[in-house]
């Protein structure tokens, strides 16, 4: 299959949905500028121009509400924010309005909006530009929340999201944008709410989210050297959660690692742990392990970033500990995933 970048895959999904439904449109700050949201709106812009790829003022709250209103009126909207933090200006519109409108009005008011946003990491972007806030949205019934981790999912999930009659938050990790992978051509849907068993393994289940999927895959290779097979599940969607796929796996392995890009406390990793414990307690050989961010804002200094983010070796050590009871020797030959370098 031909390979393309994650950013291009996002673009393909967008273009496809816009071609199929002439009422679909895009909105966001500077999304029609030459950088085109790291290339992801480029093809749409070329084909449909700024009338359907609409630049907006720096007014996240109203603009999100306007997108919601247009969506209710029958123009499915793809709203793009360059950082997930900017959504905090629009929390009222998202949580109190988009998530409630159809329910509150007895099913008469679907809201087909997709809100795309990017998670930053590295190059000293610091406390206000590096948060992973999907747990905030995962707590809210009425929303769907996806985090595509591969180019194929970027296309398939985003395409499904644009066609979905409900508000979908699509959270994209900045480090994924340049990842290259096989992506089906043409119409390609990945269902929202279905996790993906990327590689089976019999010893330990690792449910990973967003960029952590790639860390889990790398950890799998290292663990194989110790004779430990990690089953890597890409969670893909954090609301609704695909409990069946996770439970199937844990019932088999009896051991669970959850690798999240967000803060640990009250994160999605807590939910997965609690849900599995609730439903498969007697299958569990050991307590589930959460690999996530420490309870601190993101620091700027490269020296602190280095220790702030969990590492592939953390997953490896957790896997060893779950199987052998000990983290073992220092993990050797840990690959370095491509880091994003400034200036932005």
């Amino acid at each position: 299959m031909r390979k393309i970048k994650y950013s291009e895959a996002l673009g393909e999904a967008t273009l496809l949905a816009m071609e199929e439904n002439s009422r679909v449109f895009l909105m966001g700050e500077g999304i029609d500028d030459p950088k085109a949201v790291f290339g992801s709106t480029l093809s749409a812009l070329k084909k449909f121009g700024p009338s359907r790829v609409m630049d907006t003022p720096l007014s996240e709250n109203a603009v999100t509400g306007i997108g919601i209103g247009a969506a209710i009126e029958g123009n499915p909207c793809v709203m793009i924010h360059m950082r997930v933090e900017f959504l905090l200006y629009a929390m009222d519109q998202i949580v109190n309005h988009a998530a409630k409108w159809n329910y509150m009005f007895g099913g008469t008011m679907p809201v087909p909006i997709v809100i795309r946003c990017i998670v930053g990491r590295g190059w000293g972007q610091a406390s206000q530009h590096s948060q992973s806030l999907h747990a905030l949205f995962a707590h809210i019934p009425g929303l769907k929340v996806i985090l595509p981790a591969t180019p194929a999912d970027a296309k398939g999930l985003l395409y499904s999201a644009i066609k979905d009659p409900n508000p979908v938050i699509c959270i994209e990790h900045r480090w994924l944008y340049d990842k290259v992978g096989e992506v089906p051509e043409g119409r390609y849907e990945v269902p929202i709410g279905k996790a993906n068993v990327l590689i089976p393994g019999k010893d330990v289940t690792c449910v990973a989210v967003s960029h952590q999927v790639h860390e889990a895959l790398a950890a799998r290779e290292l663990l194989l050297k110790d004779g430990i097979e990690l089953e890597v599940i890409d969670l893909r969607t954090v609301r609704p959660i695909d409990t069946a796929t996770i439970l199937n796996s844990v019932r088999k392995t009896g051991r669970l690692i959850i690798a999240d890009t967000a803060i640990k406390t009250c994160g999605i990793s807590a939910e997965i742990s609690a849900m599995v414990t609730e439903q498969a307690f007697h299958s569990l050989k050991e307590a589930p392990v959460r690999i996530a961010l420490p309870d601190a804002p993101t620091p700027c200094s490269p020296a602190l970033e280095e220790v702030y983010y969990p590492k592939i070796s953390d997953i490896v050590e957790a896997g060893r500990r779950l199987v052998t009871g000990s983290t073992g020797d220092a993990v050797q030959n840990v690959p370095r995933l491509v880091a994003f370098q400034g200036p932005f």
Partner: protein
Amino acid sequence: MANLKSDTLKSLYTKMLRIRRVEETIADEYPNKEMKCPVHLSIGQEAVPVGICEQLSTADRVYSTHRCHAHYLAKDGSVPKMIAELFGKVTGCCRGKGGSMHLVDHEKGMMGSSALVGGTIPLAVGSALSFSIEKKPLVSIAFFGDGGSEEGLFYESMNFAALKKLPVIFAIENNQYATYSHQKSRQATTDIYKRGDSFGIPSAQVDGNDVETVYHTAKEAIERGRKGQGPTVIEFQTYRWRDHVGPSTDIEVGYRTQAELDGWMEKCPIQRLETKLLAQGLLTPRERDEIEAKIKTEIAEAFAFARESRYPNPSEIYTDIYA
């Protein structure tokens, strides 16, 4: 300002009276505790929604607030479905999920109302954006209060609507109070409409208790919208007679005076039109009584319908979370 036709005037009168009587009945019945939800009555403020909505088609849109009864009724919402909604019955306009603060009728163009002050302003602009994209000669109305005009959403929405020349009318019902706080203790300048000017939007401040003035001012704004000439801001000066929430009067709370209330009750929009219509012979006392009687029956039937309807099944908790 051309004179309105007598049919139009009678229609305005009937609609205002209907709203008044529906709300008075709600107030009377409220202590029976069959309507288990907070109610925010618009008694005294009927002219604004009626004067505007009289000129709209069902494809034109209205977005409203916590104080939404009058907007819903002015946009031809069904009285039985409204009362059933207040009763929490499955026959209500939201199947019992919304209650008094969330009246809706998609087919009539009543797009819903929010309990978050200011929350629907951008939604109304969203409808207008859709009309503009689809090149439809339709308009969208954002109803909100003087309090709502303090939310940043209003300014962000005005800028966007003016920038993209969207057919939206920012219809501000300035009743001077937000709950028990007077506008002067919340706003640096009380001429809200001037803030519309500063975005280059045609903006006006008018008597919101004179339904004909409301009608004429809205007419211009609606025409402007339909022609693709962009948004309008209209600040309507009006006054709420009852408590902020609940069925009663509230002078005893102590935040406003009886004299102030009395002054505004003299400017009752319904009485004003009735006096004029009677004086000019456009309405006879007998016709008036017939209208009253018809409304009375309609309301009685609506309450009976609400009482007889069943509650939603428990499983409805899980329906319509997603479309």
